[in-house]
């Protein structure tokens, strides 16, 4: 983060991304409402499944409810409406305008994306999580498993703030395929479902068999959903946060290195 905000230009780019996203407030509000309905449906499924077992499960309903609402809150950050825009710029040659700027190109792209996703985090994710946390105790679903101390909330906030950066790292690495093939979307298409499964978008990784769970816990996808879910649930918070921060740093650094290496091989204006 320090490296990113090292120059004033990057702060300007982050602010530009923030404003750009806030321009779409109507769409964000409408999709927040839809996320609320999906969340209730998923809660209904878990309530029904656990309820039919008389509550005798290894993972309690409060933990499952936290999983559902964190998933709904973070979905738009991980599955961005503007995915593949970098790849389109690479193929379209528009990247040259970015290279002409007197700033680090990778950091500029990261800063703009971060601005957009921070706006989503502030408007959509926070709304979904706050409304769920307030409403759940007065519904048949019961309360969610949430931090009970201020330290816990600070760590949870930190974990949520790492998600936009980790998400950019994962998406950027896929978008770099545009440097070598025009069929870059094909790669993303094939990877989408396995990566979403490994991240815990379809079911919590706690439900995975031990070997698969081990793979999911030590994969970079852990930083996207499962890590913030565990931090909010209060499960192994410090270790989870360290792993999440580590993967976020690795993803961003490998993105920056790959971008620099691929740029040296890319002809711009015939040279």
């Amino acid at each position: 983060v320090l490296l990113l905000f090292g120059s004033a230009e990057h702060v300007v780019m982050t602010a530009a991304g923030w404003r750009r996203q806030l321009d779409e407030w109507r769409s964000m509000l409408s999709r927040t409402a839809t996320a609320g309905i999906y969340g209730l449906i998923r809660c209904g499924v878990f309530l029904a499944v656990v309820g039919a077992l008389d509550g005798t499960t290894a993972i309690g309903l409060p933990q499952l409810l936290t999983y559902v609402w964190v998933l709904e809150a973070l979905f738009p950050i991980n599955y961005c409406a503007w995915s593949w825009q970098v790849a389109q710029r690479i193929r379209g040659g528009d990247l040259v305008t970015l290279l002409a700027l007197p700033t680090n190109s990778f950091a500029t792209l990261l800063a703009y994306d971060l601005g957009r996703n921070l706006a989503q985090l502030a408007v959509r994710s926070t709304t979904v999580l706050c409304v769920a946390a307030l409403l759940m105790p007065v519904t048949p679903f019961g309360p969610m498993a949430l931090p009970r101390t201020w330290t816990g909330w600070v760590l949870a906030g930190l974990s949520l703030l790492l998600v936009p950066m980790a998400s950019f790292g994962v998406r950027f690495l896929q978008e770099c395929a545009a440097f070598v093939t025009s069929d870059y979307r094909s790669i993303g298409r094939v990877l989408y479902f396995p990566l979403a499964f490994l991240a815990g978008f379809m079911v919590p990784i706690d439900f995975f068999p031990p070997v698969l769970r081990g793979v999911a816990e030590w994969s970079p996808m852990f930083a996207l959903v499962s890590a913030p879910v565990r931090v909010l649930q209060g499960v192994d918070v410090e270790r989870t946060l360290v792993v999440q921060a580590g993967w976020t740093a690795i993803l961003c650094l490998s993105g920056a290195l790959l971008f620099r290496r691929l740029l040296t091989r890319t002809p711009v204006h015939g040279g």
Partner: protein
Amino acid sequence: VGEVRGYLILAAATIRAQIESRTLFVTGAVASGLSVGLETLGIYLVARHFGQIGGWSPEQVVVLNCLLSLGYGLFSVVGSYVSTDTFAGVLRNGDLQRGLSVPVGALTWLLASGVQPRQLCRCAVAGAVLVLASTRAHVEWTAGTVGVVALSVCATATMFFSLNLAATVVTFRTRQASELATVLTVGGATMSGYPIHIFDSILRLIFVYVVPIGLTVYVPTLWLLRLPGVAGIDRSMLPLTWIAPLLALGLATVCWRAGLRRYLEES
């Protein structure tokens, strides 16, 4: 006859255009197969984690889910352009105007232009998993059970199609995807992937009688697994699994015509 011939000619052209880019076609097919495979694996893992869901074993839940996936797969193959978000894009890009100049009905053009052969991979994976799971769930394969599967798949696909077709009346007006249709389609699919008797009576009522996706999947599964069902939803309701989608289709066609008429008046 003219409409059918027109549909076949246009659909063949759409398929040829899609196969033109082999990489995109193959990766699209692989992705659709992976999506249904991993979704089913997810539901299996949930059922395995809890040991059973509403008294059903993980394999029995997978059989139910595969019927749903086959129905949704069939809808994706033949009716993807009616899907609310895709249809909103068709309207905004002005593609429907182009379609209206073709000498077939607007709906025929829409269906033919949206044929997605790569989604057959979704059906193939769902079918393969159904065969595997049904062996473990002790399903006896006879002509009758094959007929029940075919009925369920067609009825479920018709229900998804009808829901999205009905939503076009709103999309014609707003040019935006109908969130209600998305919620009913995705929500209905999410809930119908589990035995519907585990839900409370209000949700059961909605997904059996109001938006009967639950009916078209759950009741045929009861037949396959030779289970009695619960009060209010049992095997005797099998005839309803084809009557309800036909009624929904009739209602959806009325909505489509109303929306199209308004669109033509405005344009």
